[in-house]
């Protein structure tokens, strides 16, 4: 029996022959670790970029999005649990989609980007790397939608082929991470910093769950950390919780809570703070931090107005607005 140790994420699973890592999809077969979902996504869709959500990265464009089974986190409130909390031996359907086929399909559908998303792309790392390499060569951009629970060296390597990342900062409390997601906070913070260091455009999302991580003092600490470590220009999205999976005992987040969280984060120094997963356009538009000019108006996933100049500046004060606009 030859056990292997996975080096991809902080769990450092020691996997005996015939077993899988905690993610369910990286399996030790014959003493070698196999990425069993390589080239076998179980979900493939074309979404608006705003759905990821990325607000400062090619707004209004469509993004070819795929995800495989498995995840290295086990969030009690996971919305995609039917995909993420299953292994390759449990999923009902896969598509045969080798990297070149994905790139060809994305280009054929007129997408300018590919998102590795839905579950956590950390667990299908090799598939991301090969697909993203081909995509970049074909002129497409690559977006990594992740909970950022990954070791630094693998992350640095994958960053070479990534253009944007959407990092899920689930809370600013290690106990919350352990209780709700079965993970720890510090590796996530380190990974978010690594994205910034590697020059990958980063936006952060925080799902606000009533009574668990909606404490305004904690939100202020999180925002201050972001200002200090990621920069005040890093967009932060507060997203509304809805009862899911094993967390059906809590109510949806009141919109007022999200509004207060947004005000707290803006007050802490972040310049672009959004509210998501709510009806209407509350807190979803981009305005110039200097003069309040409406730059990009949004309602749901739809762009209702775009007043940015061609080179991404405010039309009133000519300030450069951070993001990837071209």
């Amino acid at each position, binding site marked *: 029996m030859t056990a292997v140790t996975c080096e991809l994420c902080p769990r450092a699973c020691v996997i*005996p022959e015939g077993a899988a890592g905690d993610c369910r999809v990286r399996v030790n077969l014959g003493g070698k670790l196999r990425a069993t979902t390589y080239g076998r996504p179980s979900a493939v869709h074309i979404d608006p970029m705003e759905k990821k959500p990325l607000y400062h990265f090619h707004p209004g464009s469509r993004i070819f999005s795929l995800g495989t089974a498995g995840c290295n986190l086990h969030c009690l409130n996971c919305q995609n649990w039917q995909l993420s909390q299953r292994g390759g031996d449990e999923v009902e359907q896969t598509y045969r989609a080798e990297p070149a086929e994905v790139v060809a399909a994305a280009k054929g559908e007129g997408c300018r980007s590919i998102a590795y998303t839905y579950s956590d792309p950390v667990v299908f790392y090799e598939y991301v790397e090969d697909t993203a390499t081909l995509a970049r060569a074909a002129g497409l951009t690559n977006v990594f939608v992740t909970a950022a629970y990954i070791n630094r060296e693998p992350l640095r390597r994958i960053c070479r082929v990534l253009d944007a990342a959407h990092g899920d900062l689930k809370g600013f409390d290690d106990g919350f991470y352990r209780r709700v997601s079965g993970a720890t906070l510090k590796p996530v913070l380190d990974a978010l910093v690594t994205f910034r260091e590697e020059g990958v455009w980063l936006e952060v999302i925080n799902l606000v769950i009533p009574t668990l991580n909606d404490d305004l003092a904690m939100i202020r600490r999180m925002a201050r950390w972001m200002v200090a470590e990621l920069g005040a220009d890093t967009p932060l999205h507060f997203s509304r919780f809805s009862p899911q999976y094993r967390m059906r005992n809590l109510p949806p987040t009141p919109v007022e809570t999200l509004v207060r969280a947004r005000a707290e984060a803006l007050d802490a120094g972040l310049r672009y703070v959004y509210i998501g997963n709510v009806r209407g356009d509350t807190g979803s538009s981009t305005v110039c931090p200097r003069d309040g000019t409406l730059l990009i108006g949004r309602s749901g996933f739809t762009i209702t107005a775009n007043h940015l100049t061609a080179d991404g500046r405010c039309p009133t004060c000519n300030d450069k607005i951070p993001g990837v606009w071209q």
Partner: protein
Amino acid sequence: MFALMKHWREREVRFLALIALTALLIALHLGEGLSLAAREGAGHRVIDLKTLERRIDAGDLSDREAIWYHQATPREVGGGRP
């Protein structure tokens, strides 16, 4: 208690013995799974290997070798996840 037990017949004793045997078998079955999970380190999942191999053979899944792993050291195997 003993006053109640003296009224037991042989059939009740046999019935209780059967219940105990069933409980023992269930415990052994569960214990086997736990010992498998604990055998080499921790942080792994026991999977339906036959189904997985069948799905790989059918092309539903891949046997592509992963990167970012190494053969577990004796210390890792013995100590489980750090």
